[in-house]
């Protein structure tokens, strides 16, 4: 092969994928990044919504990594295809609703499609996986599973732990020098941090727990509740976005309330008023609430009382709540629900 070898690196935005791509780049390989958006990725989402978080960095870490490496980054929306991974993971879930092993296999197989597309002329795939780093997907036994089931086989190179794994195509072909790859293993992050220092990287992202909301227990509980209420495991993008916002309260099995916690969430939920029954106090300052389900008149009254409970009129005798249902506006005058009557089992 006369041309410079070319690799496509999976860039999550974390340190490991940054280092993996850098190691290969240092060996004279042309590297381009690919980042998959599943809908569950932990990026600026909630930061963008909640006012209290607005001062936090809202940078997209994958873009930041690409800038550090001075490489193009392909952002790929896989929301639709990814549903099957979340809903029917062949290898099951991790501690919460995170289907990490299926997710890794799927992402590598998507990267493989880019290799097989002649427009780009990629020769192999790079990931930042480290044996023993994650209990479900990054174990010695799962490394070959990902390589095989994705179809990438020996075109998949993990530079951070390659020395603990069999030789891959890019090593055999002499595109990369195995001696300059690494043998990291386990959960200890110190070797990666030392390597980052050596390359002059600081200010990199250090996500705790995982790269997506599916590893978050509270989030997973809300998703499981959604599935249970629907009687089937399905979701749309709006559903999974809304699980990141507001207080989720299910007073009865057939309806749920999403109550904004502050101004930023109020604004975000405004965008959903056409899709849901909504309510907001008008006699006092208070949250916008979306109602997911088909409510009876009694349900509407209870929902208005709960909404009033979180308004500035929580101690008033009566709060007027505007209800918009099927495009029709009406007003309900309700007494705010006392704190002790908001059952803890309603809170999702």
């Amino acid at each position, binding site marked *: 092969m006369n041309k410079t070898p070319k690799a496509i690196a999976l860039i999550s935005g974390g340190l490991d994928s940054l280092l993996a791509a850098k190691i290969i780049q240092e060996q004279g390989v042309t590297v381009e990044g690919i980042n998959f958006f599943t809908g569950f990725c932990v990026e*600026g*989402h909630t930061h963008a919504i909640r006012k209290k978080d*607005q001062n936090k960095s*809202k940078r*997209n870490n994958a*873009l930041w990594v690409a800038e550090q490496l001075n490489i193009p980054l392909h952002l790929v929306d896989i929301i639709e295809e990814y549903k099957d991974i979340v809903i029917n993971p062949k290898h099951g879930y991790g501690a919460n609703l995170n289907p990490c092993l299926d997710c890794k296999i799927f992402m590598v197989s998507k990267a493989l499609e880019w290799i097989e597309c002649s427009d780009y002329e990629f020769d192999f795939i790079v990931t930042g996986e480290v044996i023993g780093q994650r209990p479900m997907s990054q174990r010695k036994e799962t490394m070959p599973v990902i390589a095989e089931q994705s179809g990438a086989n020996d075109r998949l190179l993990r530079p951070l732990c390659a020395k603990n794994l069999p030789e891959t195509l890019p090593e055999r072909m002499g595109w990369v020098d195995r001696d300059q790859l690494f043998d990291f293993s386990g959960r200890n992050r110190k070797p990666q941090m030392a390597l980052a220092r050596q390359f002059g990287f600081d200010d990199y992202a250090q996500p705790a727990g995982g790269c997506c909301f599916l590893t978050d227990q509270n989030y997973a509980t809300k998703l499981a509740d959604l599935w249970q209420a629907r009687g089937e495991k399905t979701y749309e993008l709006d559903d999974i976005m809304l699980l990141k916002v507001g207080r989720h309260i299910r007073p009865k099995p057939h309806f749920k309330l999403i109550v904004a916690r502050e101004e930023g969430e109020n*604004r975000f939920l405004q*965008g959903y008023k056409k899709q849901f029954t909504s309510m907001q106090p008008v006699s006092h300052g208070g949250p916008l609430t979306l109602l997911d389900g088909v409510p009876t008149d009694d349900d509407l009254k209870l929902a208005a009382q709960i909404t009033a409970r979180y308004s500035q009129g929580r101690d008033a005798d009566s709060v007027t709540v505007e209800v918009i249902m099927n495009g029709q506006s009406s007003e309900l005058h309700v007494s705010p629900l006392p704190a002790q009557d908001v059952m803890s089992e309603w809170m999702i």
Partner: protein
Amino acid sequence: METQHSLDTRNLLCPLPVIRTQNLVKTLNPGETVEVVGTDPGIMNDIPAWCRINGHEVLESTTIENEYFVCLKVGD
């Protein structure tokens, strides 16, 4: 400012506005201009970062009330 194309990403959260911008820009010619409007303040960082990586030029970015506008020119 006057641009040839506009992209509405209101109520989408990052990185979707960037993905939509990327997908639109792929269909355009060098020199064409686009205005992206969104409600996620993240676009004020992410679209310029994406432009830097991919060789496009940010012409202007502004905030009007709770909406964010980024105008860009497609690079070569």
